[in-house]
């Protein structure tokens, strides 16, 4: 009786999750995969094969855009880690119990505003007639307004700003679990600040670092609004290519192949990153 009840509650609790995974993740991916291997040869006549992928690989523009997106995403992830770590350290270890919640909230507040509005915020600041340019002119630091939008630097700044929270949150939660006595033991046994950081803090925080990097990398590589709005035509972000295939050129087959390629390639980058740093998902993300 109680076993049946237990099973029932398991099913009830598990169903929404299973439905979500199945209907919104697995089925669409299968659909995309299916569309990506077919080729339109006439009205309602299709052939199946890997021609779309072949086209993608042989066309340098597509290939280079993907590589560029991956490279910039890695850069954004690295910057988010370098900037986010001290913030996470401050929240987890230095701030007092009471201000900790307030600081966390301050990190969350930007999420209450949509990506679009936040990107326009950057535009207001950085465009030729924007706040920063005009202020610099007024102070006489520059003689005429400069355009600070539509370059890689701006795209990177905007992306770091958008994703850094997803780096900070996992870092704070791992660092909070660290006993301060570990640091003191590290110093007591003769370690310098650098040694303690390198041999104790970083290895201890590794699960948080890996989780944060995977999330930020995936979010960045898959982001669309920020690179398009801040980078303009120069952004050459891979999601823009996918958009073009689906919407502008109405070539769903090719767009699907791009989508699958992006997923496979970013998964590969994550896998390579884990291998290079000697980590595995089991010992980091899935760790208690």
């Amino acid at each position, binding site marked *: 009786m109680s076993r049946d009840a237990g099973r029932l509650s398991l099913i009830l609790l598990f169903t929404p999750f299973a439905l979500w995974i199945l209907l919104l993740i697995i089925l669409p991916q299968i659909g995309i995969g299916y569309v990506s291997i077919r080729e339109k040869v006439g009205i309602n006549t299709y052939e199946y094969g890997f021609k779309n992928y072949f086209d993608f690989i042989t066309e340098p523009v597509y290939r280079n855009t993907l590589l560029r997106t991956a490279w910039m995403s890695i850069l954004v992830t690295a910057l988010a880690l370098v900037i986010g770590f001290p913030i996470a350290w401050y929240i987890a270890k230095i701030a007092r119990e009471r201000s900790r919640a307030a600081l966390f909230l301050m990190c969350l507040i930007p999420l209450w505003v949509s990506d679009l509005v936040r990107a326009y915020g950057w535009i207001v600041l950085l465009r030729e007639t924007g706040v920063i340019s005009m202020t610099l002119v007024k102070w006489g630091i520059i003689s005429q307004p400069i355009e600070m939008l539509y370059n890689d630097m701006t795209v990177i700044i905007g992306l770091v700003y958008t994703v850094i929270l997803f780096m900070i949150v996992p870092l704070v939660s791992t660092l909070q679990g660290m*006993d301060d*006595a*570990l640091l*003191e*033991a*590290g*110093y*007591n*046994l*003769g*370690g*310098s600040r650098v*040694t303690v950081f390198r*041999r*104790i803090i970083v*290895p*201890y925080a*590794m699960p948080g670092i890996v989780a944060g990097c995977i999330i930020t990398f995936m979010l960045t590589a898959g982001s669309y609004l920020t690179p398009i709005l801040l980078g303009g035509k120069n952004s050459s972000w891979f999601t823009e290519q996918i958009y073009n295939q689906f919407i502008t050129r109405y070539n769903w087959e090719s767009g699907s192949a791009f989508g699958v390629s992006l997923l496979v390639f970013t998964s590969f980058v994550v896998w390579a990153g884990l291998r290079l740093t000697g980590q595995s998902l089991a010992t980091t993300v899935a760790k208690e």
Partner: protein
Amino acid sequence: MYDLSCTDLTKTFGTFTAVSDVSLDIPSGSFFSILGPSGCGKTTLMRMIAGFERPTSGDIAIKGESVLKLPPNKRNVKMVFQHLALFPMMTVGENIAYGLRCRKEPKSEIAGKVARVLDRVGLPGNEDKKIDQLSGGQKQRIAIARCMVLEPDVLLLDEPLGALDLKLREHMKIELKQLQHQFETTFLYITHDQSEALVMSDNVAVMNTGRFEQIGAPKTLYDAPASGFVAGFVGDATVLEGKLGEVRGNQGRVILEGGKEVIGTVSDGSKSGDAVEVFLRPEALKLGEGESGCQLGGKVESLLFNGASSRILVQTGRNLIEVADPEQRSDVGEGSAVTVSWTPDRARIFARRPGSGAAA
């Protein structure tokens, strides 16, 4: 030459004085304990010695040289933390090698040193184990090995037995003492558990509200406490409250709150008329008639069996007196009328401790 000496050490946090004017000298190779209730300042004192807190005033010297200006990682004082603070992401061998690698010792020597220290703590060949594969007692020994491999001048131990279960704690007490003999290093041990301090130490400092009440060998503290606090904190004692009456030599007559009078030894500067407490150790008491004034009549309240440390609880007036009963006498039972007696030199009279209630 002292391995560690503190001179007039004081530490204040805002208006709160955690450690007040503490001086101590620890001879080379001895086991020194600081015993005190929680919040007495003993941890602050230890953290100042390790370098994690800056003393407000006073000096700390290791092997005769002041270390006040040295940061924690430059002091040759190693510490076993309360929860051991073994690095969970490293293996046993890496934990022990950490300090050696910080010192930039050659790799070829590190492995040998790690193996040797593991051998000395009785865990040879465990280099590749993970920390969470070890039992509580093994972790303890690794934490000590991690410090001892660096050959410190002084090893600080901050209540390291607190997290262990009772049986293991009893065992580790003996083991710690043996390790200290083996390494011939000065140990400074901090605890609130009087039996740990008494069993292991050559000398014990009893600390209360930031000050040392008494420093001495365990036997001295037990047999000749310098204050009511020490008498009450070290070992078991029944406390009778009363007022000091006539004093002759160092013998005093105390009028108990129930009106009865008892005789004991005045052990501090208490004068006739002062509020005092009489401390009676269970083993100093026996059942049977004694000299006049050195006895109290009562009724057996209960028999507490605990092997060689069995006790008889005797109700006299409003006080409950604990009498040691190592032979587990069979001629008394609950409710029998008995007389408890002692010799005057073993009943110690001290000024009443501030804040001690009638139910001491």
